[in-house]
């Protein structure tokens, strides 16, 4: 009985291998590729801002400054002070003098892209140790925040 059993096991094993080998008909589980669908979400980040997309003019747009301030209070203030003091992230004083508008806009909207590609952003991550959260800012929101930063840096 025992030898018969072993024989059976051996054959069964070969059999299984064979089945797979000849199995052109073995179907894929074919899960629908629904990955695409996840992109259809009400999140507005992800579009890279180009230099030509932004125009910076004086005098400041006061409506944007006010709008930018409330966005700051809701979404940024927890980590960024308006002074030079670093809290979780760098203080915002003179940020518009250190960085180009396009850098600021992309940092606000596309953190993941910046941390992957921009050496300056990568340096900041090393200093702060916290990935800046994506705060779901639309392009218009980010532009308002930029205007508020300029006002904070004393532009008129």
């Amino acid at each position: 009985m025992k030898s018969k059993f072993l024989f059976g096991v051996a054959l069964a094993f070969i059999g299984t291998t064979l089945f797979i080998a000849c199995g052109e008909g073995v179907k894929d589980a074919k899960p629908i590729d629904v990955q695409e669908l996840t992109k259809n979400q009400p999140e507005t980040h992800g579009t890279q801002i180009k230099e030509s997309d932004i125009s910076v003019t004086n005098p400041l747009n006061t409506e944007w400054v006010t709008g930018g301030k409330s966005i700051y209070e809701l979404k940024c203030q927890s980590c960024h002070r308006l002074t030079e003091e670093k809290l979780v992230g760098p203080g915002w004083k003179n940020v518009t003098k250190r960085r180009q508008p396009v850098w600021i806009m992309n940092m606000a909207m596309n953190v993941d892209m910046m941390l992957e590609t921009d050496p300056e952003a990568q340096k900041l991550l090393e200093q702060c140790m916290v990935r800046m959260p994506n705060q779901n800012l639309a392009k218009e929101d980010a532009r308002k925040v930029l205007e508020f930063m300029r006002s904070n840096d004393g532009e008129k």
Partner: protein
Amino acid sequence: MNSFFKTLMLVAVAFPIVWLQSCKPKGTQSAVSGDAAAKVYVAPGKYDEFYSFVSGGFSGQMSVYGIPSGRLLRVIPVFSVDPEKGYGFSEETKPMLNTSHGFVPWDDLHHIALSETDGIQDGRWVFGNGNNTPRIARIDLKTFRTAEIIEIPNSGGNHSSPFITENSEYVIAGTRFSIPMDNSNGDVPINTYKSNFKGTVSFVSVDKTSGNMSIAFQILMPGVNFDLARAGKGKSHGWMFFSCYNSERANTLLEQNASQKDKDFIIAVNWKKAEEYLKAGKGKKESVKYAHNIYDEKKHMATSVIETEVTMLDSKELTDMVYLIPCPKSPHGCDTDPTGEYIVASGKLAATIPVFSFTKMLQAIANKTFEGEYEGIPVLKYDAVLYGEVKKPGLGPLHTEFDDKGFAYTSFFVSSEIVKWNVKTLEVVDRVPTYYSIGHLSVPGGPTRKPWGKYVIAYNKITKDRYLPTGPELAQSAQLYSIEGDKMKLLLDFPTIGEPHYAEAIPAELIMKNSQKIYKIEENQNPFAALGDKYARVERKGNEVHVYMTSIRSHFTPDNIEGVKMGDVVYFHITNLEQDWDMPHGFAVKGANNAELLVMPGETQTLAWKPERIGIFPFYCTDFCSALHQEMQGYIRVSPAGSNVAISFGTGKTDSTAVAIK
């Protein structure tokens, strides 16, 4: 290799496999065809094809599995508190579990109903019943959260529920236990059952846009036990079919005494007729008490209202609204096929499955082919309504689901198998064993006008040796079978949480395209929200201390709090300022006789804490959020009752913005 040799070789190979299996102990393992693994394999990063919403039975919850992989995706808290998610522990969610009996933190969820449009699953809501303290819950499939719970008055236990009509006009609620009506004197001897105990079925309307439920009307019924139900569809849309048992109306040892009669009933309710009677003012207003709880998605907060009235239609007085179809031996499952023509009733003690014809039922009603009356309701002649019987299909038929090719799949508890039969010819064409003693079964889209087919899933009642043993208490046992070919093929065993009864599966794309990722912080209307650190603060109101706290990677504001005294109740209102998908923060404080909070991005939730001793109490974020998650913490100081330590708070060095507001 020529084909002759190929065949010969395969026969030689196949033989030992068959032979080996026959030598194994019967039942513990069964033939799984070679490609089963490929059929259930969902590669890393890929998605399942179906969501399956599985009732949690005595866990009170609903679980969500991916099919065909059988992977658990989520447990949605519905009728039971869930400390993992703070459900029923946060101040915002506590009202969801309010009832006319007060806070009831548990129930027994048996059946699932996915919302439908034109008889096709639309992926908007899923409903579940509370069997113990009668309730129906609606879960919003954008958020996978319980959005509404309505209590059912004049019910002793909501088993025959929430089965839905084909345009989600109604979910229904039939009482499992007949009882004296809520507004009568219930203090009666139990053996006066036949005179004092009544049954009801409730039609709960569902608002087309908001999904909000409301009890449209109840129908007063004889004092039997309502078991299961299914809506008519297509030609039978406008009718609801209920199974019932205990037509003997026994009140003790039902195991014997409710099985005396050869036949109980399928109760056919013409709800369009009931709507006419309602409109004509034939309903009687009854004074009752029931809770109606709604979760506000903008306020992140539930409110519970006690309602005080229902309209009752009497099945005895209002003719042409309710008919009885005799059905052998304590019918359990009562299922309508995709065309709406056939009503399949499964007497759980029977050895045949009667299939009734809707067309013949209408004829029998028109011709008054009655065999008598039961409690004032006409009883149709069995033979006049019967389309045919599936003969000797197995022992203990329970439930039937349908595929897209004209076949029915019936579960058999006693003989522990699924039997496939042809709905037209009533011929049994296949059977497969289940491990062990199957209860409900589910084909994707199986109860609708448009079954998606492809799989049938067995939800079994007994597990025994199917998985690695875990002591006396075992995981529940489910099996996935392919129904694409003529023969059902076992593909997968997968364990589930306790205890699945009914489940419904739906193609993934119908749900995932609407799945919400974050709560927009701009839309947060919770009155206790701190929308930005500017509003983070601590306020005393008598002996209540309200902490308006924000959380973002990786700190709380404020994170140092003083001025709390013994005898105070502290309310931590946590607003998660994150706006990124999958960035919840948790919150827990030492010694809280409560649970944690789990706060989604953009959401506000509140934990109440009554300090029991003087000292310093740490609090921290419980959901790993960032590289500095371990740093996401704070302290709250508790001083003696008469202490003069003033309220103060802050985060960082000197937080001028936070201190400024008081």
